[in-house]
């Protein structure tokens, strides 16, 4: 169809302009490849080119495919489509267009080339470049007692070697997923629900007598899992281990979202979802603007709730908050927002590394406020505690 039809004979300057528009959109993180450019040209062919507004709409519906791309498109359109499209500009005018400023993506690349910041370095698990066969890095190379000691050791006391050794264990633990019943069916060996389609198929084998019934049941699929991780100063000793866990959890399953919060809320799912864990952690470190600062849990939850209300993210989801509950803002807001979150989510789990202390009491005011709204409260200060978290997630009712 349209994909195979030739590009209409619009002026070459017009083609160049559309290409320039697509290039800028791409630089701003849009998804405007060559196929889209062709669609855009076909779209232009369908409207009156003397009407700037129509040109705008035709180009927008072809080059933009997400609401978040609309603002970059508007900016690019305004600068590329300066003169009214009635008289096509000459090539000189075309070249007189201001040189595009480097997009956000390019700046990131420059930053990446320019070495790591302190936090980025801190988050990385060093020595991993040596590969799996560096011996102690792999779980197999570890004696049982060493592994056992490691499991009980508080993350706050981990050095680089321990982090490296813990990685494989963490990755295995992080695969745990809460499940829910899907509306889709799957074939089952026995059950209560007859699969008509398969029963008829079998009946054909027995001359149309449905002797053997086939069954089906609801499939169980992963439930959405949302992590909200506190990256404020008081949580710093746990940040590396927690992020390692987070990265493994995001990489292990599609239905997982991760947010970091200190003074503000940042979604880090996209950053963490990479094959290479080191790179993922580096990306995440760069995405979070406020490492080791203060925290206002209530404000962050409010922001999160507002965002998820529109997208329905938390509906039926398991929300895991990792924080010591050290609230610098008012607790009234925290109380209100926790109640909201609980109403919408399937389960709210709070993981507090400080709760690993044998004599822990929820003395932090924020923690005491949040606790009544929490379904499960777990420590998560060492590998053993993370295993307990994984077990709790898997055992949640579907």
């Amino acid at each position: 169809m349209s994909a195979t039809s030739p590009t209409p004979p619009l002026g070459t300057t017009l083609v160049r302009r559309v290409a320039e528009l697509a290039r800028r959109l791409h630089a701003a993180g849009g998804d405007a490849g060559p196929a889209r450019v062709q669609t855009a040209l076909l779209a232009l062919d369908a409207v009156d080119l003397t009407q700037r507004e129509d040109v705008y709409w035709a180009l927008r519906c072809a080059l933009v495919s997400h609401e978040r791309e609309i603002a970059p498109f508007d900016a690019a359109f305004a600068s590329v489509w300066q003169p009214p499209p009635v008289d096509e500009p000459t090539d000189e005018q075309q070249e007189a267009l201001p040189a595009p400023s480097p997009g956000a993506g390019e700046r990131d690349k420059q930053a990446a080339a320019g070495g790591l910041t302190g936090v980025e370095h801190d988050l990385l698990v060093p020595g991993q470049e040596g590969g799996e066969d560096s011996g102690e890095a792999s779980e197999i190379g570890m004696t049982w007692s060493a592994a056992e000691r490691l499991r009980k050791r508080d993350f706050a006391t981990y050095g680089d070697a321990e982090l490296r050794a813990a990685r494989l264990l963490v990755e295995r633990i992080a695969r745990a997923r809460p499940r829910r019943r899907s509306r889709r069916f799957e074939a089952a060996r026995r059950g209560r629900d007859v699969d008509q389609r398969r029963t008829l198929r079998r009946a054909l084998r027995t001359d149309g007598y449905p002797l053997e019934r086939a069954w089906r049941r609801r499939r169980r699929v992963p439930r959405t899992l949302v992590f909200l991780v506190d990256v404020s100063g008081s949580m710093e000793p746990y940040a590396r281990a927690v992020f390692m866990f987070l990265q493994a959890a995001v990489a292990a399953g599609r239905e997982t979202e991760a947010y970091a919060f200190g003074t503000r809320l940042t979604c880090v799912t996209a950053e963490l979802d990479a094959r290479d864990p080191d790179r993922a952690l580096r990306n995440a470190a760069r995405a979070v603007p406020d490492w080791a600062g203060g925290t206002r849990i209530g404000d962050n939850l409010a922001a999160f709730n507002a965002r998820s209300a529109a997208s329905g993210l938390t509906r039926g989801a398991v929300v895991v908050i990792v924080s010591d509950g050290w609230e610098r803002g008012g607790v009234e807001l925290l109380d209100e927002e926790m109640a909201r979150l609980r109403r919408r989510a399937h389960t709210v789990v709070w993981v507090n590394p400080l709760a690993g202390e044998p004599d822990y009491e929820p003395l932090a005011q924020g923690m005491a406020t949040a606790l009544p709204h929490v379904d499960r409260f777990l420590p998560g200060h060492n590998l053993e505690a993370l295993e307990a978290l994984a077990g709790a997630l898997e055992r949640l009712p579907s």
Partner: protein
Amino acid sequence: MELSVAEVTERLRERAYLVDRGLATVIGVALELGRPLLLEGEPGVGKTECAKALAATLDVRLIRLQCYEGIDVASALYDWNHARQMLYIRTLEATHAAELPVADVFGRDFLLRRPLLEAIEHDDPRPPVLLIDEIDRADDEFEAFLLELLSDFQATIPEIGTIRAQRPPVVVLTSNRTRDLHAALRRRCLYHWISYPSLEREVAIVQARLPEVPARLAHEVAQLVAALRELDLEKAPGIAETLDWVQALAALGEQRLAPELVDATLGSALKHRDDLERARARDIGELVAAARRAADER
């Protein structure tokens, strides 16, 4: 009566109360290019209405596929009429027909045609409008299946063969963004984001839909709804809520807004307890007074 794209665009524009200029232009482009159109926007901004208006304007059939979690080929494309198949086999048995013709049992007579098959295998002279509503509620697997169907408008039923659309339908997809759609599906479609209507357009919509309602009331409610949308709500009221609210107030015999009745009927516009609390915290009397003033100035 075949309409040119320009005419369709023109006619849609004439129905200004439903479709604004941007959307009309985009629809024109979609018709011209034969591409599916993906409409996104907050719930209640009239995405579904747009498809209906398009079908009405083109004067063709509207085939609607409402998506839901777990929707599959059997409910979207085709299924076999199992009870009928079984009866047929037993009848053949009873009449001692020699061989069981399997091909018959899986023939078109036993096929239950679902919306997608209807849209592909229609015999209308002019192709219908296929509305795939709330695609974000379906899951990834269904999205992948749909992608295949939308790319060449053909579907394969193993027992029958490949069915190809003679005249591809006009496809409109809508999404409320409860889930982010796959980039491949987005790439296949033209895209349009529908925002809340301007005040004038909203008033026009109310008057077109509810001609018996006093114009003053329509103005004031539209003003008030616009003010409510400014609040930080879980679910801002859409056009449907505006219409409900106007209707509720008109049914109570109101000519103008009064704070007590607005408070009593606030549930027509706000459907969350949190939202109701938030609006009430903002002094309803003042909101109403502001809406009345703004309507007076017009």
